[in-house]
């Protein structure tokens, strides 16, 4: 756990002993008391990250492309309003026999212009996209400094005060979920509204979705809307061949969706 013990200098041995003499009784107590576990993480009182593992379900056939989710996300998380920075966005697919047209004007925040012509359309639908909070995140793997990480409750976060802004994680994300915030000049992305989760609230996008296309929940709990979603629907994830093990599950996902 402590990583300044490799050099046997006097200073670090003292540090080592100090840390472990506190940590061992703390860990013993933690086996009996959740409160101590919370103290160890310094997290919000009453919230134990070990009890949760978050994921999201998307019901593609329920999405009406209103863009309220993308708008709410920018409001909640102070994301710059220009059309180049999205923590979540909505794509529209129009599939014709010869072609598949995809667009996402301003991420869908202002709604979509009317679909050109109904003639010849085989299938058309909206797909909300966001960070998939993968179990095996390629972004966490490539961060050179440890500024992006996976929490114990399965949320991938970015440390804004430690990120160097090298953009390696942005390149490594196969889903285009990351961007560099022009104000902080660090990497930024969907956090599942972690600051809301620890207070028992839902992410802003889930909160405002008017048709229930976004289902948020705890993978570990047997009785959560997400668990039912996983039982009752046939689910897909995006780009499964990359083995990132995403935790955003799409029901009725079309093959054309990339």
């Amino acid at each position, binding site marked *: *756990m*402590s*990583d*300044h013990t490799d*050099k046997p*200098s006097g*200073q670090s041995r003292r540090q080592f002993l100090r840390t472990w003499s506190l940590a061992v009784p703390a860990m013993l107590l933690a086996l009996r008391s959740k409160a101590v576990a919370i103290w*160890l*993480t*310094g*997290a*919000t009182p009453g919230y134990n990250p070990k009890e949760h593992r978050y994921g999201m379900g998307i019901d593609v*056939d*329920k*999405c*009406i*492309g*209103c*863009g*309220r989710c993308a708008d*709410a996300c920018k*409001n*909640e*998380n102070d994301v710059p309003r220009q059309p180049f920075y999205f923590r979540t966005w909505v794509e*529209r697919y*129009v599939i014709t026999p010869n072609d598949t047209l995809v667009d996402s004007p301003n991420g869908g925040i202002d*709604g*979509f212009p*009317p*679909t050109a012509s*109904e003639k010849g*359309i085989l299938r*058309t*639908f*909206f797909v909300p996209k966001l960070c998939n909070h993968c179990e095996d995140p390629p972004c966490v793997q490539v961060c050179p400094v*440890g*500024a992006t*990480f*996976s*929490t*114990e409750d399965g949320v991938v*976060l970015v*440390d*804004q*005060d*430690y990120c160097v802004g090298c953009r390696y994680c942005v390149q490594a994300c196969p889903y285009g979920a990351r961007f560099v915030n022009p104000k902080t000049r660090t990497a930024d992305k969907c*956090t599942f509204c*972690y*600051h*809301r989760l*620890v*207070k028992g*609230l*839902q992410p*802003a996008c889930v*909160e*405002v979705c*008017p*048709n*229930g296309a976004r289902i948020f929940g705890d993978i570990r709990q047997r009785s959560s809307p997400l668990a039912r979603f996983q039982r009752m629907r046939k689910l897909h994830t995006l780009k499964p061949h990359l083995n990132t093990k995403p935790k955003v599950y799409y029901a009725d996902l079309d093959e054309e969706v990339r």
Partner: protein
Amino acid sequence: MPKQLTRLIVLFAVLTGGLVSARHFLLPKTFGELGHYRAAAVTAIEARPIHYAGRDACATCHADIFEIHARNKHQTVACEVCHGPAQAHVESPTDVELPKPNKRALCPMCHRYDPSRPTGFPQIDPQTHNPVKPCITCHNPHRPEPPHVPGECGACHGEIARTKAVSRHAGLECTTCHVTPVKHKITPQEVHPEKPHTRAFCAACHAKDAKSSPDIPRIDVDTHGGRYLCWQCHYPHQPEGA
């Protein structure tokens, strides 16, 4: 050992020692506690301000509206979708007032007809559906059921009606094929119209010996189309397309 080598080794040792001790001072305090990251980052993220209060927050003070809203068609629509982020209002209700949108601009964001929207989701054409008037003139946003039960099926099923209107089945009423309970017009998601199940249904007009208008095309019901149901090839709302 040549003198230059000893000097080099000493130089390297001094530099390495210097770097290691520099690391000891520069390393952030909470790094490594939970993983290869600063545990303080999690706390910092948790402390970010909240702007959306969540639907339960509104119920505390606006219980009457909340009750109506929760029992009607907009129950899945959070208060903050239309009224905007409410956390500031929850914290100081008298100082911060939330907007009550009453222009036509808001409702068509969800309800404007778009073929990409799921079938069955209530959609209208804003240019022909009571233009000029604000939507709330007829629809109470917390109880948005339309003031009159729609007369035509096409009021909600516009695309189907438009397709059928220029097809060979234009003269057919929707109810000819779809037995529709009256309740469907009031609670459309709960009570659905029926759809025909068998080839015999279409054969009632299209069989060679059917008692129907001579203009109707006739087929040999036993052999035409093999084992498939009629609508697997013929789209009933535009049957000439097959």
